[in-house]
């Protein structure tokens, strides 16, 4: 009863904070700063949003950004999971690849932009590549450590039940056992990849895209529209996070009773 009551009031506290922030922002913009270039007010932003809906490129921007993001995250999954599995399961592969990966991993994804352009030109693949670099390591590392953390008892139980070959052990024992951690890695990767998006679209790979439009409106000095795109980026990122979290909870809660996410 008390807990339920607290939950409700917590929720309203959050709503109150958002309202107060908006009010404070509006007051600062219209009473103190009084310059929509330096600080557009919430009303300016809403007006800009309505205009942008009218002009009709919002959906296209979202679509193009999702293509970039999809290329990046998709290829990160295709590369990160198999390498993570190979390194986690075979000691030789780990010893072989670990030094190379440890050298490449700390390079910030944005430092790859020159080579993204040189290798892929001004294409969607180029933006996807930068996102790929940001997303691949969290997936790889989590897959690897998920495989390393498999309790020995599961592998031995599998062996005595006739699951003896590496391929079968990986498929039936190791992968399902490591899946919660792999899923957590994908969730982190989607966050990092999304953050790389703005920079990936900055160098003009396409005429549309959330990051591309952010720079476009900055160059037009339409800061209210810039804020619209900032908020869109934040909300879509949040949506992805919710989606992954929902998926992880739904799939693993039953057997791991809330340890994940």
């Amino acid at each position: 009863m008390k807990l339920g009551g607290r939950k409700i009031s917590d929720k309203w506290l959050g709503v109150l904070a958002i309202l107060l922030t908006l009010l404070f922002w509006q007051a600062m913009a219209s009473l103190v700063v009084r310059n929509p270039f330096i600080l557009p007010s919430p009303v300016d932003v809403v007006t800009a949003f309505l205009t942008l809906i009218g002009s009709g490129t919002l959906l296209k921007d979202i679509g193009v950004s999702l293509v970039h993001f999809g290329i990046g995250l998709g290829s990160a999954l295709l590369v990160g999971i198999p390498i993570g599995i190979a390194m986690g399961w075979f000691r030789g592969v780990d010893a072989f690849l670990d030094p190379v990966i440890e050298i490449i991993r700390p390079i910030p994804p944005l430092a790859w932009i020159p080579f993204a352009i040189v290798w892929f030109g001004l294409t969607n693949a180029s933006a996807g590549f930068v996102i790929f670099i940001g997303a691949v390591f969290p997936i790889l590392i989590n897959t690897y450590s998920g495989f390393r953390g498999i309790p020995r008892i599961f592998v031995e139980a599998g062996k005595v039940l006739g699951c003896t070959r590496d391929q079968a052990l990986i498929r039936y024992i190791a992968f399902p056992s490591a899946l919660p951690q792999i899923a957590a890695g994908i969730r982190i990767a989607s966050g990092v990849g999304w953050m790389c998006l703005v920079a990936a679209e900055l160098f003009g790979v396409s005429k549309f895209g959330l990051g591309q439009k952010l720079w476009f409106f900055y160059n037009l000095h339409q800061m209210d529209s810039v804020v619209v795109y900032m908020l869109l980026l934040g909300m879509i990122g949040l949506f992805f996070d919710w989606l992954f979290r929902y998926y992880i909870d739904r799939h693993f809660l039953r057997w791991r009773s809330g340890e994940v996410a």
Partner: protein
Amino acid sequence: MGDLVIRNLTRSFVRDDGELLTAIEKIDLTIRQEEFICVLGPSGCGKTTFLRMIAGLDQATSGEIILDGEQIQGPNPKVGVVFQEYSLFPWRNVIDNVAFGLEMQGIDREERYRSAHQYLDLVGLSQFSQSYPSELSGGMKQRVAVARALALDPVILLMDEPFGALDAQTRNLLQKELLEIWEKTKKTIIFVTHSVDEAVFLGDRLVVLTPRPGRICDIIPIDLPRPRERTSIEFAQVRRQILDLIAQPKCSLQ
């Protein structure tokens, strides 16, 4: 047929500091089919190592283990194992855990579920077939583990202190159930325990191991009629005899 012959079995490990550690030394033992053997010994005497070698999970340093005339080289469907810790796959529900071994043999879904249900029935957990291991109590988990090991219809069932983590009441109940299952399925059972009470209640013969390195100190037939009464005078006498034996220098010292 179906006998397990262990000859001159030794297992030693090289420790990190280079010292040689012998876990099991020169064990000779023949176990007849359908026999219930309890292996009794203190913690760290190599009981688990002994069992792992029969399961094919560990290789002997010297000596051999022969089942049905064939030397055991690795995991073998003729040998089922129930582990000490909870070893059910948490990502599979109960029926898919029990059916796992059959799935690995390539038996189709319908057939393996039918078979798995029979074994789940045997341990009295049919109504939990769709539950996940995290939703079961400790006793239920080990019942499922027994059903999973039996589903491949092994000749021998190895059990490594399977009831060690359970409360006394559940433990006694599971011991009784295990004996019923043993009578129904006619498996050879090798049951490792450090509880004298448990060993006397279950075993046809008791193999008493010495602490480090594990050697056979004595093999004691338990002639008490079944079903055994834990509270009977005869039971208490046998138990005292074993306890006295364990306390003797020949069994407690190297």
